[in-house]
């Protein structure tokens, strides 16, 4: 059970990371990155690190994402091919 | 007998301080001259004050700083160093007087005189260096300090000459550094000592590399033949600088270094065993003849003198490399003899250029009438180089020939004779043109209100130096004169071996 959860989560992590890499729309990439962070949060929560999970949720998925969004607003949303 | 005394370090320091003062307050002509002369006389006094002690065999030493045990900067006024510093500090006085006259109205004189003083400071430092590291420090500093003098004119030609000069000397310095480092590695010390500091236990191959590195390193400045390329090119410098380069500081430091390597790093005994000195002596012999031959073809006065210098320097190297007391005496003596004669010649050439604007041998027909005193001095110097008795050059050749015979190498006597003939071959045409040909056009007359043929600041050093050439030739055996110092030095070199002159 635990193994299954782990495998699914790890697969999801890699999938989101690859999606971040592939997304041409920077806004989408940032949003998917925040999903990646939240998935990571779940993994850590599961591994007995609630403190880290909370920090990652607040800082990694929260503050970092917002800072990225502001930057996109101030620069550009499209990654040139 | 070694005595701790502050004078060996004070002597270079005086010139160094003088350089600082010149850089700081040199904009005023009065203070510039004041400091330069003051330092020149103080230094001469310092060196002279050590002379009586030296003649009695006292060696003044002063340990300045120690980096790590056994490696440091130290000063040691032994007889050989004293001899060299006597020559250079005496000549500094004359060159300074001459330079003041020659550089009148030229620009950047602060820089010129500042680095001039630095050069002399480092030359004395080289003379009094107690070990190879100190020697190398001053040797390289000299390289750097002469650079601004060489490129003083700031023309593209001067800059090119400066670059070539630096390339030669710095690469030589690199070899010297490697040699010094390897010496320390092999011997565990760098302090010059009479029987030499290296021994057979380091292995012949290592010793060969060390010898090669050190000889290349110092041989560049001594202008041994394949390494001489910089010297004729560096002639673009102002004449006092050429005089300084050729007679006092740079080349003599190289020759001095070669001698130190032979006698105080390797030592007579070791070198006799190894036989490294023979190829060096052959090379020196070749240089003597080859450079003289090239000099024959030079029309530019200073270039002709430059090749003559190359040839004469190898007398010193040859004398040192023969490894006999008499030859060594000749080598040591020739440091002074060549210096005074050559500086006279450069001074005269400078005076000719200053007064008449002529630079080529072919242009000076009949100049003997216009510059009688100068050309008389020039003649004395030329006779000295040819080796006519009663001049300084004769003493060198005499002892060198005796030394060659002592070393069972009679063919060097032939070299000496050939060289004398060649010297005559390239100096006498100058005298011939000067005295026995009609001037092509009238020489510019004396400026009104002048009593001498050329400004007296130029003439005075010329005459004195020429007088010295005669004096050295006449008073060879008089105690207290340079000859006796040289003998003390040579005694020191050969003391452990036995068989002094």
């Amino acid at each position, binding site marked *: 059970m635990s193994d299954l959860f782990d495998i699914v989560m790890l697969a999801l992590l890699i999938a989101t990371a690859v999606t971040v890499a592939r997304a041409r729309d920077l806004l989408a990439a940032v949003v998917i990155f925040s999903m990646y962070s939240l998935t990571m949060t779940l993994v850590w929560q599961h591994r007995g690190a609630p403190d880290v999970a909370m920090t990652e949720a607040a800082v990694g998925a929260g503050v970092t994402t917002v800072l990225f969004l502001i930057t996109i607003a101030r620069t*550009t949303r499209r990654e040139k091919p | 007998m070694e005595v701790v005394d502050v004078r060996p370090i004070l002597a270079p320091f005086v010139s160094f301080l003088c350089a600082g003062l010149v850089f700081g307050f040199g904009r005023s002509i009065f203070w510039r001259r004041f400091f330069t002369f003051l330092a020149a006389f103080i230094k001469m006094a310092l060196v002279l004050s050590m002379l009586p002690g030296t003649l009695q065999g006292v060696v003044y030493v002063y340990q300045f700083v120690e980096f790590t045990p056994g490696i440091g900067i130290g000063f040691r006024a032994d007889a050989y160093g004293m001899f060299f510093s006597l020559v250079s500090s005496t000549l500094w006085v004359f060159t300074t007087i001459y330079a003041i006259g020659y550089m009148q109205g030229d620009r950047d004189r602060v820089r010129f005189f500042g680095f001039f003083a630095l050069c002399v400071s480092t030359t004395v430092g080289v003379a009094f260096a107690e070990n190879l590291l100190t020697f190398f420090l001053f040797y390289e500093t000299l390289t750097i300090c002469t650079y601004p003098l060489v490129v003083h004119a700031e023309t593209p030609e001067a800059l090119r000459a400066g670059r070539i000069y630096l390339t030669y000397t710095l690469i030589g310095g690199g070899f010297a550094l490697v040699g010094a480092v390897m010496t320390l590695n092999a011997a565990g010390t760098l302090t010059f000592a009479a029987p030499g500091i290296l021994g057979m236990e380091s292995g012949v191959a290592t010793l060969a590399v060390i010898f090669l590195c050190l000889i290349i390193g110092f041989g560049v400045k001594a202008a041994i033949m394949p390494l001489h390329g910089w010297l004729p090119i560096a002639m673009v410098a102002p004449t006092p600088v050429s005089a300084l380069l050729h007679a006092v500081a740079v080349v003599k430091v190289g020759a001095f270094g070669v001698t130190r390597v032979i006698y105080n790093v390797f030592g007579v005994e070791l070198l006799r065993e190894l036989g490294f000195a023979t190829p060096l002596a052959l090379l020196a012999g070749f240089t003597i003849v080859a450079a003289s031959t090239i000099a024959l073809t030079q029309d530019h006065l200073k270039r002709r003198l430059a090749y003559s210098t190359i040839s004469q320097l190898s007398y010193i190297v040859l004398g040192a490399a023969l490894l006999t007391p008499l030859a060594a005496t000749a080598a040591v003596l020739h440091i002074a003899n060549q210096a005074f004669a050559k500086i006279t010649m450069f001074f005269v050439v400078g005076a000719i250029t200053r007064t008449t604007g002529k630079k080529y041998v072919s242009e000076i027909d009949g100049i003997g009438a216009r510059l009688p005193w100068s050309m008389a001095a020039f003649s004395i110097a030329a006779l000295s180089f040819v080796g006519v008795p009663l001049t300084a050059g004769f003493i060198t050749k005499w002892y060198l020939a005796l030394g060659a015979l002592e070393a069972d190498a009679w063919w060097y006597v032939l070299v000496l004779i050939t060289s004398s003939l060649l010297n005559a071959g390239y100096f006498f045409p100058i005298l011939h043109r000067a005295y026995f040909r009609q001037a092509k056009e009238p020489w510019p007359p004396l400026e009104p209100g002048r009593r001498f043929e050329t400004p007296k600041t130029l003439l005075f050093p010329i005459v004195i130096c020429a007088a010295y050439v005669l004096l050295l030739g006449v008073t060879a055996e008089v105690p207290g004169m340079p000859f006796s110092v040289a003998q003390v030095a040579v005694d020191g070199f050969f003391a452990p071996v036995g068989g002094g002159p």
Partner: protein
Amino acid sequence: MRPWSLLLVLLVALPLVAGVATLPPHDAPDAPIHTQVGALYLERGVAETGMKNLVTAVLLNYRGFDTFIEVVVIFTALAAVLALPKGSAPLPKGNAPLPKGSAPVPKGNAPLPQPDAARSQGVGGARSREEEAPEVASDVPVSPVVRFVVRLLAPFIAMFAVAMLFRGHITPGGGFQAAAVFAAVFIALGLVLGQDRAARLVPVDWRPWLQGVAPLAFALVAWIGWRLTGAFLGYPIDDHTVQEAMGFVLEIAIAVGGGVVLARIFLEMET
């Protein structure tokens, strides 16, 4: 570029895989990580520090110095953002003709482009491009519903952060999390209210002090600890009240200082 990048990634990946493959298995209780210092902390931590959440104990007590330097790092980030030249603001005024030390480095022998030319080029060009560039405008009108919800929720989220802060020694969470939440609330308010109104939440006069409050509080506590126990950042082991008080000071300072720093970075980037 791509094949080389892949090659580089592979070159890095192989040793890393080799490295992690030979590590001791990670969830075995007898791995060194669980038998050395970590085990001692688990064994004595509560008694020595008075904190039930050992992560907080490690953060504030055993390895408090790390946390000290960590708050210095966020302060560094703020100082960095503040020290950068502002966006496309005009160059510094005053007598100086150009910022010489900072002029662009031309390749080749050409002299520097004249300052004015560079300025008009850089700034003017940037402006013209900027007009077309932003595809997400920062001042999109926010829907009234969102605005209402954010304003309604903000105090409660802030309260949650405070709660997290004060229960940090027992439950997960603590100063940093609270700081991040404070900052998030602030940023959310800034986005819906406009940053001018949000900026009023951090008064200008207090900013210089508030942004550095975390390192300052750490230094203060370190000094107190030094006075009390003779060791820098030392906590008196047997006095749980003092320990707790020192811990609280630090947590509050981290929360306030960290929050202000993050909020100010947000403000700086917005303007």
